[in-house]
């Protein structure tokens, strides 16, 4: 980023002014990066320090907070629920998104554009509104709060992103490959098994990982709909209400690592395809 700024500064004035400009630019970049990463670094760091309070200098390193967090039976329940929700969200949103994206592919012009926009629009609805709307709806039809309600909310949050990802990939999909398979004697099912599925598998996997990542750290919609059940973000929020505890840092780090893993996985799959 610094080097990108440099030519403009060189054009602007004398060599001395340019050097000062470079230093200012470098400082600016450093401040922005610090701002972006400090919270994450602090969380991870203090999940590993012996001191129960956020203080410097660091006295020693320990994994005790992780042991404590994992020993808590509620943590195991929350983790199981979160993973369950992530898996269901990934499966259902991909199950709905793939046929939808293929349907879009066969449409042309304005209908297609309208449907793409319509399917992405819910992503712009604030989670708060979505969470309250779902809670009101479920109580209206007399369904008690719980994990299924949260799952429906998570799918609602993830589906637009899944459709967006798949739609972008399928735009470059050569439909004549499918015709070629039919022409060579493949039934519709054989065409799907031999051609369509192998070709879209990386995109589908990437979309599924994205959906799982969105589900794993979803808090607002979950909190309004999950009732007295636990998920990792809901548990962390509950623990925070009783004061900052280093086990919270440990839990947050667990969520962070899982998410980073999912996002990196999705990115790697996408790159391998390209």
């Amino acid at each position, binding site marked *: 980023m610094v080097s990108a700024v440099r030519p403009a500064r060189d054009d602007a004035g004398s060599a001395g002014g340019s050097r000062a400009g470079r230093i200012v630019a470098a400082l600016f970049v450093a401040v922005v990066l610090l701002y972006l990463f400090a919270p994450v670094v602090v969380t991870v760091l203090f999940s590993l320090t012996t001191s129960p309070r956020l203080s410097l200098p660091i006295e020693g390193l320990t994994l005790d907070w992780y042991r404590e967090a994992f020993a808590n039976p509620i943590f195991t329940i929350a983790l199981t629920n979160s993973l369950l929700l992530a898996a269901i969200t990934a499966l259902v949103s991909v199950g709905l998104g793939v046929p939808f994206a293929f349907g879009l592919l066969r449409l042309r012009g304005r209908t297609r554009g309208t449907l793409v926009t319509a399917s992405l629009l819910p992503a712009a609805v604030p989670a708060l509104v979505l969470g309250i709307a779902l809670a009101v709806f479920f109580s209206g039809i007399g369904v008690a709060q719980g994990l299924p309600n949260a799952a429906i909310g998570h799918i609602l949050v993830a589906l637009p992103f899944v459709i967006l990802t798949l739609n972008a990939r399928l735009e470059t999909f*050569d439909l*004549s*490959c499918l*015709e*070629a398979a039919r*022409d*060579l*004697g493949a039934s519709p099912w054989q065409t799907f098994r031999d051609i369509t599925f192998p*070709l879209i598998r990386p995109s589908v996997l990437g979309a599924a990982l994205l959906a799982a990542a969105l589900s794993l750290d979803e808090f607002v919609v979950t909190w309004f709909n999950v009732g007295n059940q636990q998920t990792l973000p809901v548990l962390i929020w509950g623990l925070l209400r009783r004061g900052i505890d280093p086990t919270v840092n440990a839990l947050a780090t667990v969520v962070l690592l899982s998410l980073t893993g999912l996002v990196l996985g999705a990115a790697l799959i996408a790159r391998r395809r390209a």
Partner: protein
Amino acid sequence: MTAPIAVEITGVEKRFGDHAVLHGIDLAIGENEFVSLLGPSGCGKTTLLRIVAGFEHATAGSVRIRGEDVTGLPPHRRPTNLVFQRGALFPHMSVAENIGYSLKLRGWPKARIAARVDELLHLVKLDGLGGRGPTQLSGGQIQRAALARALAPEPSVLLLDEPLSALDLKLRQHMQLELRAIQRALGATFIYVTHDQTEALVMSDRIAIMNAGRLVQVGTPREIYTRPASIFASDFIGETNLVTGSVAGVEEGVVTLVTPGGLRVRGSASVPLAAGSTATLSVRPEAVRLRKGDPADATPDEIGGTIAEVVYLGSRVRIEVAAPDGTLLWADLRDAETTGLERGMVVLLGWPADAAGVWPGSEGAEG
């Protein structure tokens, strides 16, 4: 044709909603025949090919292949294979897997598939490239692989949808001859869709010219070039001069046309023409003869004019002559015949009446 019929298209119509793209197409294609469907884009040639392949369904009419009615069959149950415009190779399979795919579906044992694939790779001159992926092939190699893949299950009819259109001219010309050689060697029936008249002339046993959803003319390349059945056919195949005017008289099949500017031209009537009706004359540039001389010396078969342009085309020279009424006519001469001809020179040009065709109407007319 003495050969048995491979494909019989009868009364095929196709409508998309209210829009008709094909009107009552009748066409019979013999075994071992190479037939081109030739026409401008949007004329319905690709739709007709896709109806034979089974990807589109005719609104009316039927398609029979070797006597069997396939009109209602889906593509995978038809004895046809299609070579797609851009190859449509399966990107996740090697060239060999692409070629062997149809055989794998038919349950052939692996060794037999491998032997057949090698044979086909050799046929299309891709020996040793079976292990490559489609992205590692050049444009020409992709079309060769696509051809081999379509030939693998030994289709009764091979359909080709402008397979060479994405290639550059040199490669295209080379592949045209090679395709023709492969078709002859296999004794297979090919239906080839193209908008390129040269391609159709080079490769075909017969050409079916289409325009606006109708068959305009079906015949050998020579028949179509020398005796086009309409103004459209004469204009679409090869290059021609078109002159539109009203019929001044018909005498023993020779028509005299008078343009609005008063120019008189003669040609042979393809159909009976009424005096006073509008008609168009078509004469190929290579049939037009040219000599230096004064308009006063013109024979009844000649018209006077001024050389407007001399274009050197290598093997021949094209002379553009402006008649007194403004009509522009091309004459193609051999280089040696053009010595001394310059722009602005007054000349006489003419052609034998039987070298020019005259049709009613003014379709496609130009100045």
